[in-house]
């Protein structure tokens, strides 16, 4: 299992470097690194340090946030379909971000953007845990998720359509599908503290989630403080998904695909799956972001398009396998 983590870390490192080296400006390998580390090369320095580096860092952070929160929610609900995008947490975070932007709160206080997204995500997670019940039955979970997603998307469209800014209404796709194009260190500074803080909270829940493998009663009898665990899941997911969505939009399916692929490799223990999914999520988002630049360099292809193309078949396969188990 150590080798799984080693390989994942290696993959993330390779993709991070690739993300730094691939871009429309077509700068050579040596020039890129010289500019990045030594600040040599005039405009190349600006490209590397102000455009590509923040993009790669955000890909790493947002991907880790989504993979980790997916693994944590699945562990808590004991349901492999629980994923921030599918159950409306990302959409609600996007709604929070859009409200902060359109009310001018984000312009007045920069922190209002991640905080408002965090609040949106937190409300959605709390609602999901309430609606889906303790065991997180698949049907209740997905139905609750559909309702929350639809409501959040509708409210977001409303806010954006009512904006005096003609561009805002065209950005519904961005908020629904996500993109890392033209992000800056400002966004890194806004999102990183919340993603790192929330990520630490989620990683600390591993033992409680392991015990939950046996059900709520058994977990409690093993000394797990369930209310505190639930609060940790809500706050950790809200902080990570909220901050990631505030700067990158709602990117779906990473929290579904990554834990699904890695579960067997780490022996299915939620405590091992959490850090593995953080690495895997970072790898998947970095790969998707590189994909958007390679497939359609000038079209600003949205991240969620690629993650959904990969993720939706996984989702269908999961439903298929669950159907067979339940039948």
């Amino acid at each position, binding site marked *: 299992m150590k080798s799984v983590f080693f390989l994942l870390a290696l993959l993330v490192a390779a993709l991070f470097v690739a993300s730094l080296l691939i871009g429309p400006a077509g700068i050579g390998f040596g020039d890129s690194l010289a500019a990045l580390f030594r600040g040599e090369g005039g405009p190349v320095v600006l490209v590397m340090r102000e455009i590509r580096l923040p993009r790669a860092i955000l890909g790493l952070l947002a991907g880790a946030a989504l993979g980790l929160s997916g693994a944590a929610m699945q562990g808590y609900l*004991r349901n492999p379909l629980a994923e921030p995008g599918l159950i409306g947490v990302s959409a609600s975070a996007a709604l929070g971000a859009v409200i902060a932007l359109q009310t001018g709160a984000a312009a007045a206080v920069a922190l209002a953007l991640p905080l408002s997204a965090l609040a949106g995500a937190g409300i959605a997670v709390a609602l999901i845990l309430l609606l889906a019940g303790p065991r997180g039955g698949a049907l209740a979970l997905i139905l609750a998720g559909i309702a929350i997603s639809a409501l959040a998307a509708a409210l977001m469209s409303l806010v954006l359509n009512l904006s005096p800014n003609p561009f805002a209404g065209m950005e519904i796709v961005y908020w629904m599908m996500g993109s890392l194009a033209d992000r800056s260190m400002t966004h890194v500074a806004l999102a990183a503290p919340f993603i790192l803080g929330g990520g630490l909270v989620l990683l600390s829940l591993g*033992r409680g989630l*392991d*015990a*939950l*493998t*046996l*059900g709520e*009663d*058994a977990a*409690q*009898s*093993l*000394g*797990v*403080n369930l209310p505190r665990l639930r609060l940790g899941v809500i706050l950790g997911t809200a902080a990570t998904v909220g901050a990631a969505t505030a700067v990158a939009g709602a990117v779906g399916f990473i929290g579904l695909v990554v834990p699904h692929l890695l*579960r*067997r490799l780490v*022996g*299915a*223990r*939620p405590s091992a799956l959490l850090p593995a999914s953080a690495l895997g999520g970072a790898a998947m988002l970095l790969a998707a972001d590189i994909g958007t630049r390679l497939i359609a360099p000038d079209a600003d292809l949205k991240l969620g398009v690629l993650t959904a193309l990969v993720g939706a078949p996984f989702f269908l396969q999961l439903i298929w396998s669950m159907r067979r188990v339940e039948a």
Partner: protein
Amino acid sequence: MTLMALDALTVRRGTRPVLDGVTLRVDEGEFVGLLGPNGAGKTSLLRGALGLLPIGGHSSLAALAPGARARAAAFLPQGREIAWPVSVETLVALGRAPHGAADPGHPAVALALARMGLDGYRGRIATALSGGEQARVLIARALAQETPLLIADEPVAGLDPEAQIRAMQVFAGLAGEGRAVIASIHDLGLAARHCSRLILLHRGRLAADGTPREVLTEVRLAEVFGIRGFHAETPDGPVFQPLGVIR
């Protein structure tokens, strides 16, 4: 030494008490069988005693902090849930969590596996096992917790006869080591044969508490279960066999 003391334990569902003022103690060395028809309050008593439900009255275990309670009593719930395809040793090692780390290498894990006849199962995926095998793995998890008291809700339901007898012998063996077990059991024959003491619940109240011979009387069987049975002392110990339904 008393391992669990309940004083007027009451559990309500809405306003209706499903467990009504039960007072009892479980001391070390006892294997207590908790009997009663469906809905008598057995599960409520076990969960209430652990503080998994809001309770009235007092329970010595519920009064403990979660960590201390996990080292005082292990609980095997009725719903046999294994959410993820973890290996058997990983699952059993979860019982070690209250003592520090869920380490599959701890001797308690090996001992618990051996006690439940699961020596060759360490690396098997728990969710891929049969229902009976899963039940044994879950019992092994509770054993690995190595607590003075084991509380089990219908631990032998659905097991084959060999596994049932093995499990009951393991529980009796724990009592023999100076620990204690309280287990709800529907099979009156198994209870009579293996338990040192039986507690009979009827409509949320304590109907009888004593040795198998004292508890499983004709009158009580008729009143509480609506059945009649055959009772005998044999060289293998007490034997009880339900025979028919009254009315």
